Every structure is written in C-alpha cells, then in structure tokens.
C-alpha cells in the first residue's frame, strides 16, 4: 500500500529524513516509534504530500506521491490531483484540528459533501453512523469547544473515515490527551485495525504498538534503526539505541 525507497527530506540545511526505506502492506498496521525530532511525523506528512520529499521515491497504492512518471521523467502533479489523492488518505493530528465553527456532525459531513459530492442526506446518515461507532452518538450537534480532548479526537477520526480512505495516518493521536482519555481513542483505533484498515501510526503508546501493530519501526535521527514484528523490535531489540529508548519510555 505504501512504499518508501530512499526518501530524503530537508528543511533548509537540516536533513530530517536521511533515506527511509519502508513498506506497508494492505490491511497492515505499522507503528512508528522514536524520540521527538527523529523524523517520524515528517515522514507521515510526506505520505499525503503535506511535505514534499527532496529525493527518493514514495508511492501509495502503486502511484507516486505528488508526481506522475512518464518517459522516465517526473512531472509535478496539479494541485487538484494532489487534493484528489489526499482525499483517499485519512489523517488524524496530534492537536485534533477540528473546525471550531462547526458542530461534530458538520465537521464529519463537510468533506463528503464538498469534496466527494455525496448528497447531504447520505452524508449526514453516514456521519451519524461513524460518530456512533466512536461512541459519540449523543454529541452530533455539539461544537468542538464543548467536547473533551478524547471526544474531539474521536470526532477527528470519524471526520477522516467519512471520506472512506484506503489508508489512515495517525500523527501522535493521543499525545495531547489527558491519560484517562487516551483509552477511548485507542479503542477506536483498535476497532479500525480489526476492520482491516491500513494504518500508519506515529505514537508513544508502546502497549498499543505491541498489541495492534503488524510492524513496529523504530526511527532515530532521520533513519530507520530497526523494524520488524512487535515481538522482535519491542521484545528483543537488536540495537543499543532502541533498547535505550524503550527503557526510557516504559
């Protein structure tokens, strides 16, 4: 589903990603772990072209991100093609980024009606279903400001799912939450993984990674230090850097 080959990303002179090689199969859940500044969030943002990569190849579902290849040359994609591809990838942010001037239901129906061209009635019905699935059936007409962080993040998950994405990206979805609210959000994500969604999750929740991930990737300083099944990377890390990190996080 997602394939990265030698992905480099620079911000000015600062090299944030130094050649990332990763592959995520359809239906798999990949958890990205690592200290802050290791480049894991940047990598996630490259996948839906919120950031442009400087070299290497990055593709989603067999299609390059942000470019089209013909005659051995790369052509930049038009803005609307980038938007069309983003619509197929759901993203959940650390700071929720719900639209504060809209109710929970309006947050979820906005993109389906405005981008996907779904009828208002159909969008409302689907949105109500999604919000019910994340346990917010009674909050449809509530504005974000009146919701707890955990509830806001679950609305954000429903908002992303409303576009029926083939891939979901989670950028530290529980890092801004009070500890007691983390569980509900992780439950929603766990449910999603069970339903077969392809997911890439940047997280510090080692327990979640161990339980849900098919692959765990440990990144540091812009490179992949170690990757593999959770039992290997978390249970029996081969690299000193991974061991040190896990010792501190646990």
């Amino acid at each position: 589903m997602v394939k990265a080959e030698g992905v480099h990303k620079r911000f000015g002179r600062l090299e944030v990603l130094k050649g990332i090689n990763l592959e995520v199969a359809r239906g798999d859940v990949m958890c990205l772990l690592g200290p802050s500044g290791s480049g894991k969030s940047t990598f996630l943002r490259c996948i839906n072209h919120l950031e442009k990569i400087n070299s290497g190849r990055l593709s989603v579902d067999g299609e390059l991100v942000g470019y089209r290849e013909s005659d051995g040359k790369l052509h930049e994609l038009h803005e609307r093609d980038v938007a069309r591809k983003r619509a197929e990838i759901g993203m959940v942010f650390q700071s929720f980024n719900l639209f504060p001037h809209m109710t929970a239901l309006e947050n979820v129906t906005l993109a389906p009606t405005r981008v996907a061209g779904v009828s208002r009635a159909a969008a409302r019905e689907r949105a109500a279903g999604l919000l019910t699935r994340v346990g917010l059936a009674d909050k449809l007409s509530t504005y974000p400001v009146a919701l707890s962080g955990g509830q806001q993040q679950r609305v954000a998950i429903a908002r992303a799912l409303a576009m029926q994405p083939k891939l979901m990206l989670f950028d530290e979805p529980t890092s801004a939450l009070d500890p007691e609210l983390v569980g509900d959000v992780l439950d929603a994500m766990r449910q999603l993984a069970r339903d077969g969604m392809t997911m890439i999750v940047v997280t510090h929740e080692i327990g979640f990674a161990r339980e849900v991930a098919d692959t765990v990737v440990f990144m540091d300083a812009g490179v992949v230090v170690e990757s593999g099944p959770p039992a290997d990377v978390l249970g029996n890390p081969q690299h000193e850097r991974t061991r040190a990190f896990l010792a501190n996080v646990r």
Partner: protein
Amino acid sequence: MSSSELSDERTGRPDDIEAVPVRHPGRWIAAILVVLIAASLVRSIVVDPNFQWSVVGHYLFDPRVLRGVRVTIVLTVVSMVVGVVLGVVLAIMRRSPNPIVSGASWLYIYVFRGTPLLVQIIFWYSIGSLYKTIDLGIPFGPSFVHINSNSLITAFGASVLALGLNEGAYMSEVVRAGFLSVDDGQGEAASSLGMSRMQVLRLIVLPQAMRVIIPPTGNETISMLKNTSLVSVIAYTELLYSVQQIYSVSFQTIPLLIVASLWYLVMTSVLYVGQFFIERRYGRGFSRAERATMRARWLGTRGNRGVT
C-alpha cells in the same frame, strides 16, 4: 477577605484605623482649574452671540443639510462595500503562491497607504485629463467598450473610486490579520481531507477569521464616515460641502460647521452602538478566561496571536 470576615461583630471586630490622611493640595488646584476653564468655555458657547444658536437651529433640518446627510450615508456605505470586497480580494492575493500576484497586492497597498487620501481624491477627479477615453478589451488588442472619461468620472464616481480604493488597502490588512489568526493546522486538516485551496479559504479560514475582522471593520466604517467630508474638495455635495454652500453665501461659518458636526456626531454615535452589539455577538464565548482554554484546545500551545 476571609480574615476580616472572621473578625466581624460576632467574633469581636477590632477598631478601624483612624489616621490623618495625606493632603493633596495639587489635586484640588488642578480640579479647580479644569472646572474654571470648562465653565468659561460653556459660558462662552451658551452666551456668546457669535455661536448663533438660533442659526444652528434654523439650518439643522434644512433640506439641503438633510440631503447632504443622505449623500454622506450613501457614500459611506458604497465606498465601504467597495473597500471590503477589494480588501478581501487583496488579502487573498497576498496569500497566493504566485509571486507576481502577491507582489501586485503588496504594491497596491504600498501605493494607496503611502499617499494622502486627499491627493487620491483630486487625482481620480482629474483622471479625465490623463486618459481622455477608457477602453475595455484585450490588452494591446481590440477593445469592446469605449467610454468618455468625463462621463464616467462624475464627482460621485471619483469619490467612490478614491474612498473605496483607498479603503481596500486598509481593509486588506485587517482581513490579512484575520487570516493570520487562524491556526495553520486548520488548513492542513482541511487539505488532508482533499479540499482545494479556495475551499479551505472559503469554508474554513474565512469564517474563523471573521471574529478578528469584524471589530476593526467597525472602526474603519467610522473613519470612512468622517473621511467622506474630504470629497468636498471636488465639490461633491455631501454633508460638509452642503453646509459650505450655505455659509459661502450667508457667511455664518461657525453655526453651519456646528450643524455639520452635530450630524456627524449623530451618525458616528449610531455606528458606535452598532459596533458595540456586533462585537458582543462575535465575542460570545470568548471572554478572557474561556479564551485561554479554547486557545489551548484549538491551537495547541500557541501563544499570542499577534493581532490587535
């Protein structure tokens, strides 16, 4: 607070301190001076026959004055509409990734904020001497519409052009501040849902920016109302020029300026009241205490928005 509540009558309150207060003779002298000056001013306004209050009363509802008031209101509204529309367009242009488009916006603001409004008014009124005719068509190509400048640039046309184009430059800065007040994460979330740049602007950024844009727009409207008096220099009969026409014949300059001032005060008062209600409406749920938590929730840990 709590300690003084403890020591009330039931628990036996200690005597209040009775100290000799510090004398402030300076304050008394200052107060007496201010009152004396104010009283003499009021006395001269009321008693001095040169104010000619009967003349003020005579002209206050004169049809020519009322017509001037009406024209001033129309000019304010039309120019403000031009200014707001232009301001939004310029602010959007300023965000454009195209350097020519954003540069054009910057240059426009630079020129129109950097030259006096009075000069701009006279300039637009005299545009006929620069361009005899105005052609609409393809640049360097054929033209479809052919207009004589003098028929297009009436006093009203020149006034609206000058006031509206000038206001556009100021409004664009107000709108830009509104745009900047919306967190980048909002745009990222919207574009990650597949929305286009214009959709993000129209559906996400602009509605949230309104809260920041509305109050200064009220101020701009009040300034505009008073700035309309500048077009009296091109003999457009708004309120000031209407009273000028009267006193140029009757030489009752002061009483007629008082007539104009009273009407300006009435109109700005109405705008102040309107602004009060609009601000209260858009500030709902944004009292200081609430705002701190809302900002934390919406914007993560962002600090000051850098917007006044």
